[in-house]
């Protein structure tokens, strides 16, 4: 476990479920259908504790469903998903925080109260909860925006607050559903670099769904390319390491470009 994570865990005055231990995600023989429509067809995947797993696939292939299954918002029709020792849906829900595609910040709450939602839900009083979330605002470059209402924030800022809200939940696993899909290209690149930095400072197990191969390879350790519905794993790729700290440098690295080509090819294969 990275030193910073240990420090963070130790500093928490309230109980975090299994946080100190970290937890990996293991998926075995996962098959799912919605009504008569089969959406997922026999997926096996692993995301060891503190690693980041990217899921790339054509739109409508069931990526988001897969994320909901992992998060414990649904139970699969067949197969098993384990987060740490928990295989049942409520157990997974305990270990997993979900960041939806749209930021879904509650417009009646300030940025800091939005970020502190999980703490408030766990019964932490408003004062301590704000203090707790405020620390993260400092660490992640959002100082001065604590009291801003979501409508006063830019798209990138809103997404940062939404990510902090997920982070503050203190769950060992974070399920991110196309977190930057709604942003323009420049902001997205900026946010990707920001997220990479945030995860380095505060490591968690991440499952990231995206349709952007570059984003997946830049942010994740391993990337699984999924086929069109019903989703199965076409190919699993390892992101090239070490990556340059600067995003532009990282994504133009010849090795990175080569893996990206490979991923794109797999993506095309899976569409057939």
């Amino acid at each position, binding site marked *: 476990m990275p030193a910073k994570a240990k420090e963070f865990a130790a500093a928490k005055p309230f109980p975090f479920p299994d946080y100190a231990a970290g937890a990996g995600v293991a998926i075995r023989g996962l098959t799912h259908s919605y009504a008569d429509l089969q959406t997922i067809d026999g997926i096996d995947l692993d995301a060891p504790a503190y690693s980041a797993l990217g899921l790339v696939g054509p739109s409508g292939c069931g990526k988001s469903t897969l994320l*909901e299954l992992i*998060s*414990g*918002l649904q139970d699969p029709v067949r197969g098993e998903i384990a987060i740490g020792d928990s295989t049942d849906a409520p157990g997974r*829900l*305990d270990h*997993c*925080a*979900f*960041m*939806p*595609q*749209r930021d*879904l910040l*509650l*417009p*009646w709450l300030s940025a800091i109260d939005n970020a502190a*939602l*999980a703490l*408030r*839900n*766990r019964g932490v009083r408003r004062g301590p909860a704000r203090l707790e979330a405020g620390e993260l605002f400092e660490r992640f470059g959002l100082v001065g925006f604590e009291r801003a*209402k*979501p*409508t006063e924030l830019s798209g990138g800022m809103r997404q940062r607050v939404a990510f902090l*809200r997920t982070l503050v*939940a203190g*769950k060992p696993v974070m*399920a991110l559903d196309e977190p930057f899909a709604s942003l323009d290209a420049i902001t997205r690149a900026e946010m990707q670099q920001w997220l990479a930095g945030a995860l380095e400072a505060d490591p968690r197990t991440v499952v990231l769904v995206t349709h952007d191969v570059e984003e997946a390879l830049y942010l994740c350790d391993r990337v699984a390319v999924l086929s069109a519905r019903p989703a199965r794993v076409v190919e699993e790729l390892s992101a090239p390491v070490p990556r340059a700290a600067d995003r532009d440098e990282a994504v133009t690295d010849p090795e990175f470009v080569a893996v990206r080509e490979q991923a794109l090819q797999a993506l095309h294969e899976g569409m057939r």
Partner: protein
Amino acid sequence: MRRWLLPALLLAALVGAWQVAASTGVLADLLNLESFLIPSPVEIAEALWTNGALVFENAWVTLREIVFGFLLGLVLGLGVGFLLRPFETLRLAAYPLMVASQAIPILVFAPILVVWFGYGIGPKLAVVALVCFFPIAVATADGLRSVDPEAIKMMRTLDASRTQLLWRLEAPTSLPFVFSGAKIGATFAPIGAVFGEWVGAESGLGHLILQDNALLNTSRLFAAAFLLAAMALCLYGLLALIERRVVTWR
């Protein structure tokens, strides 16, 4: 500024036109009526001034019926709206009944209420509450159902319990809807109060209007109607003011 100035200008223009049409007798001639049957705004104001004590005494009675009846309807509407939220079957079962309750003219109900609750404030409160209840209940139920399902998932992964989901997400989401329903209810309330008084009352603006109608005392009748409209406007304005204070995110 425009919010106040424009309605005030329109009102002044209408009152002015009315004054001219009534005082010159143009309106009475046009409708082929005796000119005393169509009082001018000045005459109405005079009637309000000379009968001030009587009119305001009755207005006070009606105002209480409107306010307390509205509050009763608000509580009932919110209660039913919230109750229907978690029980989809109950909602499906109760919705047609609620609609049916609104389809029966309140004038049919009111006499029975007088038989049941007597001549006091009771039946008036019941009638006012009944007319206010429906828009509020429907708005509350619809508001609670308008919550983004993705937001519910998000809250669940942030460890929200069912009650927390209700208070932190669903209730605030429904607030603008509730205010819309309440504002519609507020405009219905004076009508309910007048109907309630028409079937049996010893005081109130509705009672006064009935008397003045029989006496052909049209200027005082119009004065009473004006006060009723003012009450509805004030209640509506008050709700709009609270709404702007509370619902700051719209």
